[in-house]
């Protein structure tokens, strides 16, 4: 069963997110800055009347801000923390977002590394253009980041438990 993936780049490497988690791909635009926020928070945008925090994945993953290029785009995703609970809309600033592609999820193999600081890095697929790694959107945020970005959801979760 093939699935559609949205491909992007972190540095020189190729990555992919599942298309069903993607709400919309937006061009790069001016963002409202959030003073005092961590540097991997690129700013704030408004989508359909609701503010959405934008995460600079390059900054978070490889330590340098995303380049201001046309191929650098903002991707709105549905984020469900840990794959459970309420879904939030999250914006990711990604480089090299110009392509979608169908892949068989069964072809992906685990990379054999479980870094606690990057749990969003999933299995890998060997391709002619280089390795393609699956990025899990739901595992993207750490607990502290989630508490910072979605304080209401965290409070609600605590109240439920």
């Amino acid at each position, binding site marked *: 069963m093939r699935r*559609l993936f*949205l491909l992007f780049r972190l540095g020189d490497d190729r990555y992919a997110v599942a*298309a*069903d988690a*993607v709400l*919309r*791909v*937006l*061009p790069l635009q001016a963002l409202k800055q959030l003073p005092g926020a961590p540097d991997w928070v690129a700013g704030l945008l408004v989508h359909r009347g609701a503010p959405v925090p934008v995460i600079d994945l390059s900054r978070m993953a490889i330590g340098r801000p995303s380049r201001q*290029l*046309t*191929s650098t*785009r903002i991707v709105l995703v549905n984020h469900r923390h840990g794959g459970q609970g309420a879904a939030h809309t999250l914006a990711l600033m990604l480089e090299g*977002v*110009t*392509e*979608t592609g169908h892949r068989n999820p069964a072809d992906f193999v685990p990379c054999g590394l479980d870094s606690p600081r990057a749990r969003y890095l999933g299995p890998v697929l060997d391709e002619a253009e280089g390795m393609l790694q699956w990025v899990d959107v739901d595992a993207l945020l750490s607990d502290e980041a989630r508490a910072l970005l979605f304080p209401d959801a965290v409070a609600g979760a605590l109240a439920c438990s």
Partner: protein
Amino acid sequence: MLEQPTPESRRNLLAARARFDAHFDELMAGYDGTLHLPEEAALAKEFRQAAAEYRRLRDVLLADESLAIPGRARAAVQEQLLPQFTRGSEALVAILAVNKKQADIATASISAAIANAEKGILVSLGVALVAAFACGVLLMRAITQPMGSIVSGLTQLGAGDLTRRLDLARKDEFNAIQLGFNTTADELSTLVSRAQRSAIQVATSVTEIAATSRQQQATATEIAATTTEIGATSREISATSRDLVRTMTEVSGAAERTAELAGSGQTGLARMEDTMRNVVDAAGSVNGKLAVLNEKAGNINQVVTTITNVANQTNLLSLNAAIEAEKAGEYGRGFVVVATEIRRLADQTAVATYDIEQIVREIQSSVSAGVMGMDKFSEEVRRGMADMQQVGDQLSQIIQQVQTLAPRVQMVNEGMGAQATGAEQINQALAQLSEATQQTVESLRHSSSAIDELNLVANDLRSGVSRFKV
């Protein structure tokens, strides 16, 4: 002889007869002068007659007619000539006897006279002896006394006492002697006292001369030392002058080289100025070209931006379309393929235009930087030109200065050379002077020793004349 007559022996004999006759006549004439007694005169007359007769007979016999007959001649000799010769001899003997008797008488009278004379001489001798003794005693009294006082006076005079005078109270020759002695003693006294004074003066003067000579010697030695020092200094001056001449020559050469270098530098600067002017012009034109290029790049950029925007939006649209179609499930599957194709075209366009855009941006920024750089470059070139003109002026001044320097250096050089030569001449003159001074010192040493000897002599003289009492 008669038995062997030859014409030659005969002639000789005849010549001898004539000579004998002449001699006989001469003797007879001398004898006639001594005739005093009548007896002797008669005898002499007789002898002369006999001699005359003999001569007559002989002459007859020796005539040639007689000799022609040898027998008759021999008979004539026996009978006539020999008796006549005998008569003459007898007359001669008689004369001799008379003369003998006369001589005896004269001898006796001489002996008597001598005896009388002896007696007279003895008497006279005795009288003379007595008279001589008396006269001697008188003379003794008259001469010995004054002689004694003269001798004692002379002895005192000889001992150095020049105060002694004679007073003999005589009016004879002794008076003259006394006068002479006293005058001589006065003169000597005056002379000796003058000599004593002179000796003291001589000794003083000699001492002064000795002191002066020593001073002169010291001075001459000092002069010699000073001359040597001056000579050393002069040699140093000479050496320094030579060094200076060399240095000045080097300086002169360096100055000439500097002038040449400055000249070539000036020429180079003039060329460089031209070049820089060209560079400034070129920079201006490059700037103009760059401005044009910038404008063109801006035009390209606008087009590219438009294309890029279109491609970008197409790409974005296709992405979203694909995602939406995927979400539509089976119904949207075909649309995903279309969206993917659209996106591929858009991507190709976008990649191409993206590259162009990037290049154009780079070109534009490079052009801007180039324009700014060219402006700055032109400004710096202008500043450099101004600096260069200043440097050129300074180089002209340097050349002028150096050119005025060269003849001065030459003058200094000549002066130094003359100085060196002069110092050498001074040195030579000093060497001569030194030699002369050495000679002077040597002669002063000689004169000093001579003065010492003179001093000794003067002292001798003083002690010699001080012996005299005046």
